[in-house]
């Protein structure tokens, strides 16, 4: 069960992403060559500190509203007088700092994670639902989502995760939807959203804001947290589309398609509304009963995607009713999305034809969590799921290989030395269709010199397939940190800390200029208590320092030991903490 199952709610609004961008250029990590101008906004051809050197790292939900609910029986409601949950806010924290948006690494910026997000549904008086978003990386990014825009603004990507540690306070609220949701999934909820039309122009009023639309639904322990075991639809060349997921719900006799990240949007300059870029397409879901090269389509239903409020009120999730024959065919044959046109062959006959926009990838394999950070000697378990037409398949061989082709820019070099990672060359799924393998990390030995550790990519594919045919968004990204000599960890001096502290001061000017200049020994010593507090927090805490969550285990220990030493020597009450607020 996931957000594509029932009961499901839809929400839409804005998001804020406010990362600092000085670290977007890997060479800015080099303290030797760092220039003060790298902390300035880009100007003309000069990139300086890119588009947001003063970024806070914050990630927020802004003005998000519940637009629709779909009940367990398949009926839908958009009228707040019928179900009071409609129109309510989905928002983030009310008593913590904002969540943080964090790149894995300067050379892997395509899996940015959200950390420390609280998700609440509130009526303004109390929290009906309050829970913690499990940190997740984005996937399925494409840079042609909004062809009227450029750079990041033109891009879209999705996040899928779960909301845990749920607190419910719905008993007196009288929402049929919330009652059904709690009954179906009291411990954990599935949440998915698409982000697009992000404004990275620092002179614009909506700078750091973008559009968000998504869904929340039930979640079960046995399911992966970050993708749906379902039907995986791949965009076809020239279709101007992107990946989509579908699910056959036999009990409801429906096919549910998530097309939230599949189609292009543009701003209509006259109406000032954001609309589907090509509304002339007659998009139809079908199964292809034919053999390779000879398609034989059985049409399941039309996708009604051109209404102005389609996206906000559905987040792109479409439901098609199926009859028994339809269900039977969907179970047997791959799905397609077709731009379906009637073509006149001659005066007397016409026939139906269509160009394929999205085609199901029949045999699919996907990792659940696909971004990891490891220290020397640590290992992580990766869970992979293999499916055929959405059904888990046992005893399927999956091949694994290093692939660093997605990382960059370089220098410094990426993916070397290769020998420090150990993992099996191939694995087989168990009887349930799941395969778990372990990646163990050694010590990269500082191959990037001025950037700690190394990034590695691990591609996977079913043995009969090539990785290049797969959805390449979900390959495994690893950041493996360097080690620090034990004597420096145990008894650190300021000199040992300085290169790391100088780097943070350089790369996060808002912090270094606005609060603590970490490169200044006096500032660090005088604020040892507060720094110990924030460096000592869990990574999932939004107050964790460094906000970029790119500090190795050894360096963190070294810093904490240094701070403890300062505190033990003088037991200073932080003399300037409050003066700095």
């Amino acid at each position, binding site marked *: 069960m996931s957000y594509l199952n029932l009961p499901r709610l839809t929400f*839409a*609004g*804005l998001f*804020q992403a406010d990362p600092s961008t000085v670290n977007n250029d890997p060479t800015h990590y080099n303290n030797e060559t760092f220039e003060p101008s790298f902390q300035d906004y880009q100007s003309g051809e000069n990139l300086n500190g890119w588009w947001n050197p*003063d970024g*806070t790292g*914050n990630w*927020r939900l*802004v*003005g998000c509203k519940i637009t629709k609910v779909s009940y367990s029986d398949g009926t839908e409601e958009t009228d707040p007088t019928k179900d009071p949950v409609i129109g309510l*806010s989905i*928002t983030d*924290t*009310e*008593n*913590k*700092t*904002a969540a943080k948006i964090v790149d894995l690494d300067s050379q892997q910026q395509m899996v940015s994670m959200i950390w420390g997000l609280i998700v609440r549904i*509130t009526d*303004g008086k109390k929290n009906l639902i309050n829970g913690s978003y499990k940190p997740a990386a984005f996937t399925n990014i494409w840079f042609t989502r909004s062809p009227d825009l450029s750079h990041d603004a033109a891009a879209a990507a999705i996040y899928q995760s779960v909301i845990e540690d749920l607190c419910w306070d719905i008993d007196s609220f009288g929402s049929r939807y919330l009652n059904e949701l709690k009954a179906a999934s009291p411990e954990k909820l599935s949440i998915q959203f698409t982000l697009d*039309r992000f404004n990275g122009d620092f*002179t*614009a*009023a*909506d*700078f*750091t*804001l973008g*559009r968000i*639309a998504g869904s929340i639904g039930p979640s079960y322990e046995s399911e992966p947290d970050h993708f749906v075991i379902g039907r995986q639809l791949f965009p076809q060349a020239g279709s101007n589309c992107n990946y989509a997921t579908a699910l056959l719900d036999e009990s409801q006799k429906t096919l549910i398609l998530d097309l939230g990240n599949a189609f292009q949007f543009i701003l209509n300059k006259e109406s*000032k*509304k*954001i609309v589907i870029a090509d509304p002339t397409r007659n998009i139809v879901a079908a199964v292809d009963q034919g053999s390779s090269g000879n398609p034989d389509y059985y049409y399941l239903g039309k996708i009604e995607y051109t209404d*102005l*409020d389609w*996206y*906000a009120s559905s987040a792109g999730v479409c439901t098609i009713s199926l009859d028994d024959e339809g269900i039977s065919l969907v179970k047997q044959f791959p799905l397609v999305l077709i731009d379906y046109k009637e073509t006149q062959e001659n005066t007397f006959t016409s026939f139906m034809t269509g160009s394929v926009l999205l085609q199901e990838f029949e045999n699919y394999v996907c990792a659940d969590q696909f971004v990891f950070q490891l220290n020397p000697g640590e290992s992580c378990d990766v869970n992979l799921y293999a499916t055929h037409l959405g059904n888990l398949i046992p005893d399927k061989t999956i091949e694994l290989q290093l692939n660093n082709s997605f990382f960059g820019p370089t220098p410094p070099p990426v993916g070397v030395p290769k020998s420090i990672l150990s993992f099996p060359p191939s694995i087989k799924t168990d009887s349930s269709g799941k395969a778990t393998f372990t990646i163990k990390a050694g010590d990269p030995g500082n191959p990037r010199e001025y950037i700690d550790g190394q990034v590695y990519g691990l591609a996977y594919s079913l043995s009969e397939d090539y990785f290049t045919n797969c959805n390449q968004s979900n390959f495994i990204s690893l950041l493996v940190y360097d080690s620090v000599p034990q004597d420096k960890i145990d008894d650190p001096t300021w000199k040992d800390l300085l290169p790391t502290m100088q780097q943070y001061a350089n790369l996060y000017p*808002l912090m270094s*200029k*606005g*609060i603590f200049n970490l490169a200044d020994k006096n500032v660090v010593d005088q604020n040892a*208590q*507060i720094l110990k*507090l*924030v460096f000592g927090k869990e990574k999932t805490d*939004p*107050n964790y320092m460094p906000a970029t969550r790119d500090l190795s285990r050894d360096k963190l220990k070294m810093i904490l030991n240094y701070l403890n030493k300062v505190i033990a020597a003088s037991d200073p*009450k*932080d003399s*300037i*903490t*409050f*003066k*700095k*607020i």
Partner: protein
Amino acid sequence: MIFLKKIEIDSLEDLRKAVQTAIELEHSTIPPYLTANFTLFNTGNDEISNLIGSVVGEEMLHLSISSNLLTAIGGHPILNKKGFVPTYPGPLPGGVDTGLTVPLEKFSKELIQKVFMSIEEQEDPIDIKAMALEATESMTIGQFYEKIKKSLTALETEAHNQGKTIFTGDPSHQMTYEKFFPAKLLFPIKDLTSALNGIDIIVDQGEGTSTDPFVNPTDSTVEEPAHYYRFQEIVKGKKLVSDPSAPNKYSYSGDPIPFNPAKIPNMWPNPKMENYPPDSLAYTNSKFFNYNYTCLLNSLHLAFNGQPEQINEAMGLMFAIRLYALKLLSNPDPNHPGFMAGPSFEFVTDEDLNAVEKAALESQTS
């Protein structure tokens, strides 16, 4: 000098109300002090900034002491309601209408002298002639705390005689934070002695004693003058030092406290989020500032209502509002050419935000 509305305390319930007013009063000075201090950032006025910052830190301590006191006597501090935050410019909570109007303004010596020193002025400051006599309808802050002390003593004595106590609060709800406030300044309030001790710290740090402008060493970790005199140091441009030749044995003849106004952002006074056009950066940053400020009040509310560990979240939020204030002070005020935007310290709810944002949201999401 601030005059509060005269209050009568005849019952424990009255006392709780008075302590809630104390909490509101202690909080209400923080936004104006912080605003002035934010405008000193990176202007080469660190010494002045540190003086204001040290006062802000102590106002936070006073807020904490008052909240612990209210919890101790079985009350529930309320910090997360719209009315908790005063409207700026305006009177401080509990103040008489004819009293002082407190604004959110950029730093100036005039602001320090006319407003901040008035807020902190005691009944009979050394070197300054006695001010108005006790009015029948008003009282000074010193008198206000004196009244609370007397009532605490009277009510506890009365309870004690009946074999009871007014200190019925859950001791685990007391918020202490030894990493930042020494235990001798912020301690659990559990009985009359600790309650009176706490109030003495508030009054002494704020006013000093009638003969010594410096804070009693037992109420401080460093030798420093009371708030009124710290502000006067800024105005005079010199540190207050003991001076045997001066009539009151103290004079502003110590090290200079330089002031350089050149780089102070020209913030338009008393900003309001709703006054900024919704399609301006000033509006966006004002909204995020107020989001964080509201979260801060929510986290403090929890910290003083049974979840003392929430103070760690509050610490993070204090830094967050600073960052957004600095962003605002670098955004031009769209309504006032030549001026910069600034923090407005407004308690916001989702409903507030929706009304203003509707237009922007509609074009983005429909």
